[in-house]
């Protein structure tokens, strides 16, 4: 046993629900309660809740907040009005991805950044090195902030019971201060499942009551296992798999999140060059031979040469087929093309299919 694992404020709730707890990025987190497939279906068909309090929350405040975020992220944050949230990347000067994040514009000169749990320390150090001339204050509130994701076609109806009309009025990627059964929260219409849904930020002290209230409103507790399978089907990237310091946004099909025309930012020069000159590409594939592809399995051309690797693979609970994402040489990123995934030392045939596997069902105007 090395360093003790971190626990979220909802740990006791997970134990009470008989969750199977596992290590994830230094945290002891629920991987499943009743079963991954049941929990996955609950979110696709009804509503599920996830404890994602392990994720990082940084506040950016002060008169240069916008200029600072324009410089350290790939997004055009000037397009993000108060009450809106958007996806962004931190990129390295060479174009590799430090992390992916969501930016929530709460108020004038007041932004909330949500980053991956496993990257909190790295991201904090990364953004602080660029503060320099900017008049901004960065605050790491990760330890004091609980985050519960409520996702699924019934999420709106469930949340309405606790926050009222705002659950209906809040638009896709909208964010607002709100009151949940009398408790102060921030609520956003964001998520990581491909379904309509919300994310609820609260103090640690209020989190357990919010969690239990949502369970009381028939939301199904879901673990990290279902979170992974739910994000995989609509092909939402997971840092450390589809994204890394050595994978650039164009390879990961996230060019849409890089706004080169907003002015200079960290990585903009390299990204300008990479846009028309990247060598690998993320592809969606279906295993047509016998077997299930998993992350890190090698991918080779039918003629035998190595062309890449699987980033994520699993049997898709919704589609009932073994599917995968792979980062391969661009010449092989052609729908209908075939390659082999090496599964337990044997080549197993796979075919490149339409990306994504599952069309997200967000509530759009």
């Amino acid at each position: 046993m090395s360093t003790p694992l971190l626990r979220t404020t909802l740990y006791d709730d997970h134990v009470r629900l008989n969750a199977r707890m596992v290590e994830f990025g230094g945290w002891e987190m629920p991987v499943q309660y009743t079963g991954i497939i049941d929990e996955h279906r609950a979110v696709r068909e009804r509503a599920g809740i996830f404890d994602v309090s392990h994720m990082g929350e940084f506040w950016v405040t002060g008169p240069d907040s916008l200029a600072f975020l324009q410089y350290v992220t790939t997004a055009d944050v000037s397009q993000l009005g108060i009450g809106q949230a958007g996806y962004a990347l931190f990129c390295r000067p060479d174009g590799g991805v430090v992390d992916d994040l969501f930016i929530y514009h709460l108020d004038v000169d007041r932004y909330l950044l949500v980053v991956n749990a496993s990257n909190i320390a790295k991201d904090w150090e990364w953004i602080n090195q660029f503060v320099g001339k900017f008049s901004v204050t960065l605050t790491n509130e990760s330890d004091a902030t609980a985050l519960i994701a409520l996702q699924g076609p019934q999420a709106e109806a469930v949340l309405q019971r606790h926050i009222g009309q705002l659950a209906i009025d809040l638009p896709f990627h909208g964010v607002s201060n709100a009151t949940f059964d009398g408790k102060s929260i921030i609520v956003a219409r964001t998520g990581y499942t491909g379904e309509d849904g919300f994310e609820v930020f609260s103090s640690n002290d209020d989190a357990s009551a919010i969690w239990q209230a949502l369970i009381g409103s028939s939301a199904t507790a879901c673990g990290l296992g279902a979170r992974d399978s739910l994000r995989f089907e609509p092909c939402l990237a997971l840092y450390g798999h589809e994204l890394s310091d050595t994978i650039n946004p164009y390879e990961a099909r996230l060019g849409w999140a890089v706004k080169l025309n907003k002015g200079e930012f960290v990585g903009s020069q390299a990204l300008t060059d990479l846009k028309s000159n990247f060598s690998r590409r993320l592809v969606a594939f279906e295993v047509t031979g016998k077997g299930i592809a998993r992350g890190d399995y090698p991918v080779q051309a039918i003629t035998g040469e190595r062309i890449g690797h699987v980033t994520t693979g699993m049997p898709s609970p919704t589609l009932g087929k073994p599917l995968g994402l792979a980062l391969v040489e661009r010449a092989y990123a052609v729908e209908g093309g075939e390659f082999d995934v090496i599964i337990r030392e044997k080549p197993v045939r796979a075919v490149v299919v339409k990306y994504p596997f599952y069309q997200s069902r967000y509530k759009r105007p």
Partner: protein
Amino acid sequence: MSFKTPSELKYIKSHEWIKIEGDTATIGISDYAQDSLGDVVYVELPDVGARFGAGDAFGAVESVKASSDLYVPAGGEVIEVNTAATEQTDLVNTDPYGNGWLIKIKLSGDQGELLDAAAYTAFVDSIKH
């Protein structure tokens, strides 16, 4: 949570069980193994006639989340494969010591360290957290 470990079976630390009857044996995965894995959705088994030494990988069981290689507790030649388990994979979860068995082998005499039910239960307790 406690797991079933029938006393008439032997176990190995990679969580397979073996039931030896004369010169043949039946092999499957333990109740603890199926529970750890979660809903089994894919079972890969060898062909009849395949030969393995004790401790060799003979296939895999997979859930949505994880893949787990299967190891033979004793060496031998595969004489029967449970196609019911490959077609109806939840048998491995619901009845790991019965209808969810995986392969039958003709023993070659090559055998690794086998644990009795008490020793295996103690081992599982020691790795659970």
